[in-house]
């Protein structure tokens, strides 16, 4: 199978490791988030019960996914929410552009939505002359600099206060330089209030969609989500197809564990349940609400019973906060919409395991992510599975890029290894050579070089174990 264009992780990660400011920003933030989460889960039994319940709710929802999606569509339609389906990001973008153009929209505000990041919707709309303005403070900060989110919950966490202060004074009209967080926040409030006022459409994500009642649930603290979904006359919500749950009752545990896992809050400032556009007797609210359900590789993940667990994710970001790799290299090193452990299993499945070969190997498999995950996704196990998928071509595999991570060098190295270990005489000869001359090999020898670049050079013993046993015998005492 031809190799896909590979996106590197090793090099950007190494670069991030050499940036002391970036490392300090992440260390501080991640330590803070880990401590806040811990403070919310003081009773480990309660936590485990809540995780088991949440995991079971997500698993049950996925087992009934096609039925629930149809039920959601029916309930939403009954409520006056128009439902659209998109197999790919391109389809989703085109669909949203059509909607906006049909309504003559040139200015749109956005609440935070990772799916819209996945679609690269902002760039697409800007190219078609539509302003797509992020209104979550973190998203607004990174949009000012043309950056992508470095964390799924805290998108501007890679920046510190001084950097944001400089940025605001340069990019916001008439803004004076200040490092006071309240003043910086007030500046953004002023700019964005005007944008909410003027916007002809608002776009949001969806945290949970309730099939029975046709309800879109949005979790937030700032109020920008409510502004985006209630002020403009048109509201478009985008969601990955895995977000649906059967009943509102099942949302309660998920919501409880989401805010605690994400930011260590017992509850968010707002939990907004949208079940329809402005009613006939209502004074405000959008006149139209549209829901775009996106696949983009999710149905492919769904078709594999083991990898399906990826879709249990409720996007809390706890795995990022607890990951020793993410904490050190930050989000941008991943060069992906979803960074961190969840990104390591999500991105390769969306883009191909060959294209993301370095990413699936950029983990020590320590398991901190799985331990923090509120819905018990076994991320390390799935990573190992993806590593295997990358190098073992299998005609029955449904994993994107299956077998395409296989390289000529690695392939031959394993063949030689297999040939040698299967032939005792050859194995003894190879062992004799490596014990006698291994030390003399220069560090620049191929294969060895890859190891010694970042690690201490391994030194072979002067004689192999089997040689020593033969000559010395095995002491029995």
């Amino acid at each position: 199978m031809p190799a896909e264009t590979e996106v590197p992780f090793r090099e950007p990660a190494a670069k991030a490791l050499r940036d002391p400011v970036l490392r300090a920003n992440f260390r501080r933030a991640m330590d803070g988030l880990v401590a806040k989460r811990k403070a919310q889960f003081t009773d480990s039994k309660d936590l485990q019960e809540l995780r088991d319940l949440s995991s079971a709710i997500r698993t049950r929802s996925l087992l009934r996914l096609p039925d629930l999606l149809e039920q959601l569509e029916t309930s939403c339609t009954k409520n006056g929410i128009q439902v659209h389906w998109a197999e790919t990001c391109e389809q989703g973008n085109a669909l949203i552009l059509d909607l906006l153009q049909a309504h003559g929209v040139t200015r749109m505000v956005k609440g935070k939505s990772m799916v819209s990041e996945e679609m690269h919707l902002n760039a697409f709309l800007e190219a078609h002359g539509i302003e797509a303005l992020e209104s979550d403070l973190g998203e607004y900060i990174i949009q000012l600099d043309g950056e992508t989110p470095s964390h799924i919950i805290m998108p501007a966490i890679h920046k510190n206060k001084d950097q944001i202060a400089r940025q605001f004074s340069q990019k916001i009209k008439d803004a004076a330089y200040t490092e006071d967080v309240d003043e910086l926040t007030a500046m953004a409030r002023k700019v964005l209030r005007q944008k909410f006022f003027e916007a002809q459409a608002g776009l949001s994500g969806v945290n949970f969609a309730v099939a029975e009642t046709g309800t879109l649930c949005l979790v937030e603290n700032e109020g920008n989500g409510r502004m985006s979904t209630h002020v403009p006359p048109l509201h478009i919500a985008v969601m990955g197809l895995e977000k649906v749950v059967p009943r509102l009752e099942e949302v309660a545990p998920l919501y409880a564990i989401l805010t605690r896992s994400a930011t260590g809050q017992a509850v968010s400032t707002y939990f907004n349940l949208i079940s329809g556009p402005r009613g006939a007797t209502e004074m405000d609210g959008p006149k139209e609400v549209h829901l775009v359900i996106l696949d983009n590789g999710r149905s492919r993940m769904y078709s594999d019973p083991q990898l399906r667990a990826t879709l249990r994710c409720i996007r809390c970001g706890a795995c990022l906060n607890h990951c020793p790799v993410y904490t050190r290299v930050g989000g941008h090193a991943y060069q992906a919409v979803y960074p961190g452990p969840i990104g390591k299993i999500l991105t390769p499945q969306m883009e191909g395991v060959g294209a993301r070969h370095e990413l699936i190997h950029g983990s020590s498999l320590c398991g901190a992510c799985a331990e923090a995950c509120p819905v018990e996704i076994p991320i390390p196990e799935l990573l190992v599975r993806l590593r295997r998928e990358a190098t073992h071509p299998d005609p029955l595999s449904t994993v994107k890029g299956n077998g395409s991570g296989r390289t000529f060098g690695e392939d031959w190295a394993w063949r030689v290894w297999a040939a040698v270990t299967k032939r005792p005489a050859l194995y003894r000869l190879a062992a004799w050579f490596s014990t006698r001359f291994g030390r003399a090999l220069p560090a620049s020898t191929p294969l060895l070089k890859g190891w010694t670049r970042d690690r201490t050079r391994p030194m072979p013993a002067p004689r192999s174990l089997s040689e020593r046993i033969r000559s010395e015998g095995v002491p029995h005492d």
Partner: protein
Amino acid sequence: MTDARTAILARLRAATNPDPLPALDTAVMDRRHWAAAERAARLRKGMEAVHTEFLEATPSNWAAVVQGCCAREGFRNLLYGPNSEAGQALGGAWGLATTRLMPYDHPMETFKAELFSSVDAGFTSTVAGLAETGGLLLLPGPTEPRLLSLVPPVHLALLRASTIHDSFWSAVKALGWGRSLPANALLISGPSKTADIEQTLAYGVHGPKRLLVILVNDLN
């Protein structure tokens, strides 16, 4: 995009397996129980931790408490829903000359600029409170529009202690929200906030900068 719909659902159906659904053990959710007075104290503690302010009132004096607050804060006006039960009571009792009571009974578009620039505070009722985490449940709608609790810089919310439930979980069940919901339902636990700059908490980013709860003690 019916093609996309058909294709997506067909792929999902092809992969659906007949595994039994795992059981749901909700004991951890059902365990949260407090006595009525304790529920109010817990709610208050939870919400005060995120900068919500409380004003104590009785069933007979809450409208006066609202007026006292408006006078003290120097609000030029107070936006409210004149047709809600609480709105009618408030309108009937209003005698404060310094704060104009502004009815929100006409479409937002007819006074959008005024709403965004010159309303000092908004008043709403609530349908429930949540003891476990602190929080208010609201059902914005025709009589109390959605933007009432969002656009004005200060939100005054009327909460009766007898309507405080143990948790969001128990409230959803008790209120029957699971079966059907109006176009908008809402949980609010405090004034708008963000921690997007260096994890430093800042209040009043997009929604109200202050949330004042008029807690009516109607127990017994």
